[in-house]
């Protein structure tokens, strides 16, 4: 196989894997927007908060220790134990459900019927509040995220492709795991939405919340459920991105990677988030490899992702899988 073709295939495969990671972030946005019409600006910070909480629980860190020490004059930082990753993930999920409940009861319950821009503004406030609480709770030092996920070169793929093509492809084990988890997540979410009572209620609320209310669906419950699911997706995204870079406050910026995915895939489609992520991932990586690095000096991925999304928007404003809005007057 010509060397350049082998390189291109390697870049394509890595683009697919990167796209899955973008899609993981985009999924959280889709879930909340679909069910409540809220564009959740805080989704990136939720991923950060979930990752901070998970890393803190695993490490046996005392939450709010700086605050406690400052008030009580104590010097406590750790409980002195390490929590197994699986149990810590469950405990983090309990925290995220608690957060969903608090957000619904304290913020959005009071904003029912408000304009979408008001709800959007509320999520901006929520993002900054949550970032501050995360800092106060767990500190701002960079934490390692070790839940036992493999990372680094997949030697089997490297060896196999080297024997077949004379060039060993680099595929990161973490990306492979992320792809499997994303696939399971999407299958799980779709099955939940299709085959469970709560899932059907969630879809009913998404279609017309007033009609759903009239047949006895509890809006409060559904919105807490949806924010909890978005919290779960944020936790998964936080684990994956946190494993790559350590858990730190820049993690909230991964939301920037999700926006072109949403523009392309549509704000209301779970498969759209995945397909959008894959197109953005492959598109930006191939553009960087074939045009950006050789001719434009590199670092084209960020703007190219948005440009690609804008091109799609021109032809399909609702995104690839978004619902076409027809208003009769």
């Amino acid at each position, binding site marked *: 196989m010509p060397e350049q073709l082998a*390189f291109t295939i*390697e*870049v394509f495969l*890595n683009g697919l*894997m*990167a796209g899955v990671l973008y899609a993981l972030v985009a999924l959280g946005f889709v879930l909340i927007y679909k069910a409540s019409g809220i564009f959740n600006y805080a989704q990136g910070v939720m991923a950060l908060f979930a990752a901070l909480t998970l890393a803190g629980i695993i490490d046996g860190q005392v939450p709010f220790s*700086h605050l406690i020490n400052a008030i009580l004059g104590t010097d406590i*930082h750790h409980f002195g134990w390490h929590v197994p990753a699986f149990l810590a993930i469950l405990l983090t999920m309990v925290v995220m459900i608690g957060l969903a409940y608090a957000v619904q009861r304290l913020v959005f319950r009071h904003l029912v019927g408000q304009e979408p821009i008001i709800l959007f503004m509320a999520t901006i406030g929520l993002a900054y509040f949550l970032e*501050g609480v995360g*800092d106060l709770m767990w500190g*701002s*030092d*960079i*934490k*390692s*995220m*070790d839940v036992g996920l493999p*990372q*680094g*070169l997949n030697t089997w793929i490297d060896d196999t492709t080297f024997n077949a093509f004379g060039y060993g492809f*680099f595929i*990161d084990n973490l990306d492979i795991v992320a792809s499997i988890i994303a696939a399971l997540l999407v299958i799980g979410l779709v099955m939940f939405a299709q085959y469970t009572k709560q899932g059907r209620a969630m879809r009913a609320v998404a279609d017309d919340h007033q009609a759903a209310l009239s047949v006895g669906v509890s809006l409060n419950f559904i919105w807490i459920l949806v924010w909890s699911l978005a919290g779960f997706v944020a936790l998964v995204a936080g684990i994956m*991105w946190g494993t*790559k*870079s*350590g858990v*730190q*406050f*820049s*993690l*909230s*910026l*991964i939301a920037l*990677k999700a926006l072109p995915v949403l523009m392309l895939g549509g704000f209301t489609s779970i498969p759209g988030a995945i397909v959008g992520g894959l197109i953005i991932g492959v598109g930006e*990586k191939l553009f*960087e*490899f074939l045009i*950006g*690095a050789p001719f434009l*000096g*590199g*670092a084209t*991925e*960020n703007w190219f992702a948005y440009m690609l999304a804008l091109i799609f928007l021109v032809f399909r404003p609702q995104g690839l899988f978004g619902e076409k809005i027809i208003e009769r007057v």
Partner: protein
Amino acid sequence: MKLKMTTLALGAALAAGPAMAELVFPSLSYRTGPYAANGIPFADGYADYFTLLNERDGGIGGEPIRMIECETGYNTEKGVECYESTKGEGALVYQPLSTGITYQLIPKATADGIPVHSMGYGRTSAKDGSVFSNIFNYPANYWDGASVAIKHLLDLNGGSLEGKKIALVYHNSAYGKEPIRTLEELGKKHGFELSLLPVDHPGQEQKSQWLQIRREKPDNVIMYGWGVMNQVAVQEAANIRYPMDQFIGIWWSGSENDVRPAGEKANGYKALTFHNVGDDFPVFDDIQKFVVDAGKAAGAGDQIGTALYNRGLYAAMLAAEAAKTAQGIHDTKALTPAQMRDGMEALEITEAKMADLGLPNFGPEFTVSCENHGGNGYGAVAQWDAAADSWSLITDYIQSDQDVLAPLVTEDAQAFAAESGIEPSC
């Protein structure tokens, strides 16, 4: 009427900026935001050294120190607000701790007559004191860093880099682009091939750059990164199994934060530094006794000896020594910003002086003058030992290639002077 006249007189006296009874050092820190993990240890080191001087020596030359901390969040606008809100307090010198804030403060501080010390960052050509009268960037700058890295590689390669391939992975910003011109010139001089790999902010996704490195197999990678970009780069280098001892970061890519997330795989990674590492210096015993044990530490006391804590402490030490020099020149204990500037311009750091301060071999020896605000351009290489969870210096302080750098500094400073209407003078 009498009261009004008194008020006016008092106001006029304050505006004239008399020498204050305290030595005021603002600290433009960032303890919040995406870069807080780096901002906290620096701010702690900066504060703890001044606290030590107050508690142990009664200040500098018997004059107490008042440090004003202002949170910038590493945000340029907030940094300028901090400057504006604290300069009237008698601020003697600003350490902006951000290249963006430094660029904004260059004209403002110069007009206000307050010196700025951008230590290892900011505008490199501020080294030319004949143009940048109030800006100081000793002991080393970004271009020194690039040259020191190349000199280290020359040492490792028997004095020749002919035919070698060196990749620069850099933050795609004004900061990250700083070493390009220097490395291009050094490439011409030493015959190595330079490839440039920009990484867009914030740098969480670098797969393309590291796949390119895997394909092109450069002999060495130099990194000018910041924040999350550093941690991801070290992790990606480990993922593609790039030899860590051939990977060198600038000093802003050389804290414990940058290597710990990659665990064992970061072992052997190198970073430049212009000060020593660890806590095996007599001054830390005094900090423990007079600051930490007395409950007066700026933080929890858990950052002492880390790379960035030491950098903050070193910056405070240089500010205090410049203040001492100014007190000597002007024969006064209380200082004005103009007098502090004179002290910075006459600063001389010798090994004997550092040993007296409890910091033997903590930094390079250097002298500052009217023409040279940047010191002598010395830097060293530190290497990360993952098992020991610590950095160690693996070289002496190496001087940058002044034959290449001096003309570049002069050229850039002269261009700034021409566009700003400054008449260079010393």
